[in-house]
């Protein structure tokens, strides 16, 4: 009896671990899911303020924007919206990007999905497939909206996202430090130009690149950015082909160069000492803003935090921005661009009408101005510029106009394939293995996913 009781208690303790993994909600329905289009058609924008009831409503906006400027921008957007619709409050909740989508899925499982989610269809096609995201009607968007953004936020011609801004990633550079070592910023438009600049900077005692690679996402964009502009433009079905097994990584020789380049940028020129290995993205912005590193591979979204760090340090150096070149052919190098800060509306939102009102508000010039002023990002609405535009804005807009590739118009990686693409690369860089081995490991990981039914 004593043994039985002990066994029962031990089992009970272990059950506590596993209970959290179970579905807390109702058993899934047996009928087949309706297609998104059939389920509700596309949600049209409510016309005018009088469509909302007087009932007090609180919307939840789940986001992963870590930059101070963007967080300030969200607060201002919400305040302006509340002023217009006093009965609607928007509660803004921040979650780290590294675990954002997992947390979102847990909320969905618990029937507690946020009304608005700061994610893009390209990153989570599984949410669209599962019918969790509200399709949007084109009438929600004004004529002046950037059409590249709209296409990037669409799957099979159906729009799922509302873009707040347009952006991309590239190299920030410190003009004074480049000048001191005799590097012409124009030369940064090729891979050799970047590596040569790094060598010269290092030889002169500068830290070539700021490091934030203790976090996963700043390194993800290193390898993803190169893939998006290096292979995807010529192979729009790259990711679906790799996931299905129709193509293998070795079918794309560009991957060898890309991995080698990425490993050098992070391993050799960013993580230059023990301290650098443990820095986060916020440290990276500050390092560059203070003038402790000559260049930084980051997104256009980082500008406001760079300026905060620059001002705090009293650094008077001038900064510039250029594309993120993957090859030595300047004509085939682009800035990986997308509708950076966007949000989607949960299909199961209990306040869909109010959520659509918020989306409609975000597409007004008033909201665009609020967002661009606070965040320092480029509004997705054409002609909406900040009152006091950052000097780097000129570089951003010029690069977006001439040398941008909106990679999210193509199908992306999903689920475990997306996770393993980044994880295998990072593990390889940390372990110091060769690009050939990274490619082998990628292939093994994808073969393994398929073999185990993923």
């Amino acid at each position, binding site marked *: 009896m004593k043994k039985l009781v*002990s066994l029962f208690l*031990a*089992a*009970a303790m*272990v*059950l*506590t*671990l*596993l*209970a959290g*993994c*179970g*579905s*807390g909600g109702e*058993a*899934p*329905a*047996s*009928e*087949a*899911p309706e297609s998104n289009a059939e389920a509700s058609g596309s949600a049209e924008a409510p016309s005018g303020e009088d469509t909302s009831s007087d009932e007090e409503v609180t919307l939840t906006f789940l986001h992963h924007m870590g930059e101070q400027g963007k967080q300030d921008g969200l607060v201002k957007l919400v305040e302006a919206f509340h002023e217009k619709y006093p009965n609607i409050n928007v509660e803004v909740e921040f979650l780290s990007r590294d*675990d954002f*989508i*997992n947390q979102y*899925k*847990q909320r*969905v*499982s618990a029937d507690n999905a946020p009304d608005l989610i700061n994610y893009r269809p390209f990153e989570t096609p*599984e*949410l669209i*497939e*599962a*019918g*969790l995201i509200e399709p949007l009607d084109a009438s929600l968007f004004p004529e002046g909206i950037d059409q590249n953004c709209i296409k990037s936020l669409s799957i099979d011609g159906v729009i799922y996202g509302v873009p707040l801004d347009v952006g991309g990633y590239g190299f920030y550079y410190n003009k004074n430090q480049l000048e001191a070592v005799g590097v012409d910023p124009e030369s940064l438009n090729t891979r050799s130009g970047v590596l040569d600049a790094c060598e010269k900077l290092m030889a002169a005692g500068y830290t070539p690149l700021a490091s934030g*690679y*203790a976090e*996963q996402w700043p390194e993800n964009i290193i390898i993803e950015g190169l893939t998006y502009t290096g292979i995807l433009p010529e192979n729009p079905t790259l990711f679906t082909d790799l996931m299905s097994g129709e193509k293998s990584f070795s079918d794309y020789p560009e991957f060898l160069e890309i991995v080698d380049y990425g490993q050098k940028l992070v391993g050799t020129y960013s993580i230059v000492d*023990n*301290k650098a*290995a*443990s*820095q986060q993205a916020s440290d990276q912005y500050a390092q560059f803003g203070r003038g402790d590193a000559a260049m930084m591979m980051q997104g256009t979204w980082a500008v406001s935090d760079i300026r905060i760090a620059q001002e705090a340090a009293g650094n008077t150096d001038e900064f510039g921005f250029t594309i993120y070149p993957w090859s030595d052919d300047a004509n085939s190098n682009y800035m990986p661009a997308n509708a950076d800060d966007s949000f989607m509306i949960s299909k199961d939102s209990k306040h869909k009408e109010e959520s659509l009102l918020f989306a409609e508000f975000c597409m007004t010039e008033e909201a665009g101005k609020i967002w661009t002023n606070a965040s320092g990002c480029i509004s997705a609405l054409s002609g909406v510029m900040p009152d006091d535009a950052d000097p780097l804005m000129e570089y951003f807009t010029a690069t977006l106009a001439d040398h941008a590739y909106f990679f999210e118009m193509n199908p992306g990686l*999903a*689920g*475990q394939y997306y*996770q393993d693409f980044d*994880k*295998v*690369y*990072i*593990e*390889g860089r*940390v*372990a110091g293995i060769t690009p050939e081995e990274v490619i082998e490991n990628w292939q*093994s990981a994808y073969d*393994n996913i398929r*073999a*185990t*039914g*993923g």
Partner: protein
Amino acid sequence: MTGKRKWISRLTDFIFLLPAFVIFAAVIAIPFIQAVGIAFTNWDGLSKTYQFNGLTNLTALFRDAQTANAVKNTMLYTVITCVGVNILALAITVGLNSNIRGARFLKSAMFAPIIASLVITAFIWGRIYGDVFPVNFGVPTPLTNTKTVVMGIAMMCLWRDTGLAMVIYNAGLQSVPEELKEAARVDGANAWYTFWHVTFPMLAPAVTTCVTLWLGYGLKVFDYPKVATNGGPGKASETFCIFVYNHFFSNNRAGYGQMAALVMLIAVVGITSAVTKALRKREVQM
């Protein structure tokens, strides 16, 4: 006691247990039973429908190249923490029971880290590794190296949990009769001999408790690696619990993740039961 009174007494006992039983059933047992079914489906964790797929998830789990990695990381962490916590706690407890000055303060100080939650501990050590180690000692953080990351995470557990194990060993030490040790000393036994042949055998129940506890904690570790490294770099610190979590959520393979959780349940119950049984046997023989 008459039969009726006995029955009423038992009913009263049961009524006291009832609230806890209802909560346990509602929060743990029923969701668990529901979740067992999911392990035999291809549910992605998001869709409203799924199909029964029999033992496909189970066979896939044993074919999955990543399973071995998760098991290896979990076992390494468990061995380091289970052995480390017990040796450290026992050594410090015995040391502090030797009437040294400030022993009470040191005992309190050693217990203090247990107040911090697992998440806070991981944050604290993340900063210590990131800021103090490289700047003050010129040592890189172990968390960004695939070879040292599990050891780095295990250190967090050693720092936080040693105090708790000390409390258990301290209680055990108090129950060792002083006259036994005195007799050994009179017979000419030195300090080490007295500890090893008199004190340590008397601590067998405390050893059983501590080893079983930290074995269980180790096998199901989630919080430290989740907060400190998210299983990284890459998958270098992905424990079995993180493997389950990732499949359930990130990888959209809830059925597969649930099967992994079930297998883990059986393994944890099996391992801890076997170890407990072996240690208890030792208590009986003593």
